[in-house]
């Protein structure tokens, strides 16, 4: 008899309209396996506002509130307030938003909810661009990436700004728990979700969400790319609990080239540019290690 390494119960139905190989699909699937049935989701404009399907189709087995784009943090506070005043206990309130809806347009509302210590979990599924609207750059798009608004071969060129460090921003809000998770490591993902669930206050989960059409990659490589992101330290797996960084997976330190070469959005990069990315990734990793050691 086979034993699964993650809970078997599904909280999503097939038939959702995510792309083949969609990382965000797995983010939701693992999230709900970790949280269970007593969960209410708030989802702003993003891929996941469309993925449940056209009305009346719903691929989720838990209640869902669709909201305006920038409103996730506010909706989380409103939901929690209503449940509290009605005396409804033991329900996890979740804001589930894309990177654009979090680091850009949704930053204010999320910051407000975190500052108010709203008792809820914010999950940012990060496909590193405004994917639902057709692959436009966001504050979370990494340096070097092609997007439709950072096209290559013009004076504009690829994205020249580094990726916003949303985990550092959340750390500055002094929330009790934040963690990065990867769809390549579902066991770690679900463990962190369950840990977040057990903590009160504002919790943040940053989930890397490979996007085959947006990253210009073969859908079958979605998990492989996610694995490489962790191994190359482009997307390290760590927690910040009570302000202290704890790395949860060291990663092999694979050259960044291995990660970049699977994705067409980086195919225009020169050797020098790839080296620059390697340096930046190495520095980021060193900084993270230093944070962990120093307890800052």
């Amino acid at each position, binding site marked *: 008899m086979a034993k699964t390494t993650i809970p078997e119960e599904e909280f999503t139905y097939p038939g959702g309209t995510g792309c083949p190989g969609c990382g965000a699909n797995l983010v939701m699937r693992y999230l709900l396996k970790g949280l269970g*049935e*007593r*969960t*209410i989701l*708030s989802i702003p404009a993003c891929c996941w*506002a*469309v993925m*449940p*399907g*056209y*009305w*009346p*189709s*719903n691929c*989720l*087995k*838990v*209640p*869902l*509130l*669709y*909201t*305006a784009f*920038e*409103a996730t*943090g*506010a*909706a*989380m*506070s*409103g*939901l929690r*307030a*209503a*449940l*509290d*005043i*009605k005396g*409804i206990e033991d*329900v996890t309130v979740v804001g589930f938003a894309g990177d654009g809806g979090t680091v850009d347009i949704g930053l*204010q*509302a999320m*910051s*407000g909810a975190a*500052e*108010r210590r709203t008792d809820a979990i914010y999950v940012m599924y990060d496909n590193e661009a405004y994917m639902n609207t057709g692959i436009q750059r966001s504050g979370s798009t990494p340096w070097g990436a092609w997007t439709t608004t950072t096209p290559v071969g013009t004076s504009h060129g690829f994205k020249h700004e580094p990726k916003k460090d949303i985990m550092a921003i959340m750390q500055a809000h002094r929330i009790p728990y934040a963690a990065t998770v990867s769809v390549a490591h579902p066991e770690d993902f679900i463990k962190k979700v369950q840990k977040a669930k057990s903590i009160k206050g504002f919790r943040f989960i940053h989930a890397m969400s490979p996007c085959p059409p947006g990253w210009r990659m073969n859908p079958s490589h979605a998990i492989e790319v996610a694995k490489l992101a962790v191994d190359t330290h482009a997307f390290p797996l760590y927690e910040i609990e009570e302000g202290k960084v704890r790395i949860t997976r060291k990663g092999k330190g694979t050259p960044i080239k291995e990660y970049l070469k699977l994705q067409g959005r980086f195919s225009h990069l020169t050797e020098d540019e790839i080296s620059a990315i390697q340096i930046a990734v190495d520095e980021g990793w060193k900084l993270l290690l230093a944070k962990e050691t120093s307890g800052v």
Partner: protein
Amino acid sequence: MRKVMTGNYASAYGAKLSRAEVIAAYPITPQTSIVEKLAEFVTSGELNAKYIPVESEHSAMAACIAAETAGARTYTATSSQGLTLMHEVLMWASGARVPVVMTNVSRAMAPPWSVWVDHMDSVAQRDTGWLQFFCQSNQEVLDTIIMAYKVCESKGVMLPAMIIEDAFILSHTSEPVDVPDQDVVDSFLPPYAPELKLEVGKARGFGSLVKPDQYMEFRYKDMLAMKEARERILSVEKEFKHVFGREHGGLLEKYMCDDADVVLVAAGSVAATAKDVVDALRAKGSRVGLARIRAFRPFPHEELRALGSKVEGMAVLDRSYTFGAAGAMFSEAKASLYSCPKRPVMKNYIAGLGGRDITPKILGKMFEDIAVVARRGVEDEVEWVDVAGLPRRWR
């Protein structure tokens, strides 16, 4: 119990008596004393509610919508820049069919920066699907909030409502207000209990994606709800009168209109001033009347048509201006009367923007002018009142 209080406090008491359960609060002049008073009520335990000090007005409305969808009665308040910042989510609230009740302290829009009264902010929301009540007294503010919850939470309505106070004139001016007893309000206004809400165990998605082949039917339902709101406003006010002994004129409050030759149509506190002017003119033999637009949404078509067919001249005072067109209330009143076989001569007076005082003298001149225009016909349909540099002197 009678208390002397400002319009803002009347709003706060209205929300408290209505047992608002979740209050989203963001400050903006001249609404601040509403959210401050409510913070006091909640902190002292007088009001059992969750108070969310949000970080913007957009978030205030978004939080209210989420809380309503989870089954809680909500309240918030704002003004001008805050109201217009909320515009997106105002439309969301009505499309989501959640009966949020909100006070808007109507204030001029920037630039130029102004904290004083006009109606541009409120009027600019007329397409959002919200019920809109323009109040002329602090008593009306308190009463209308309570009535609005009852109207809006009705099964056939389920639309949000804004109760509009004139900035400073009502918000910061004290008047005697009768504050009803909590148990009487409780007997009038039952708890909020929506049929469909976000609840564990029910996998429902609220607000999903609808294709072109089905969207129109949802909007049609919203239209039917606004139509139903018209009837509910009237029936709820009847009940209110029965329980509390007061009413405020339904959708269009008529003062001395029955045998009037000319009438002035206006909204907000200026209508109260205009009633004094009507009395003074009547004493001198002029047959004038005042019709106060109390509900701007749903628009009082029937009432205006009935009135319009009986008068020679109808002056419509807009404390706002819709660029490139005329004043909003004038345009809508004119459109309303278009199909009437007998129509009055109509003229639009744009007055009182940015807090410019509309004095009894100015109102008197308006009545004079519409009487002249009713006889001679109208040359300029839209006249800006009391603007320096224009030929006519109003002061």
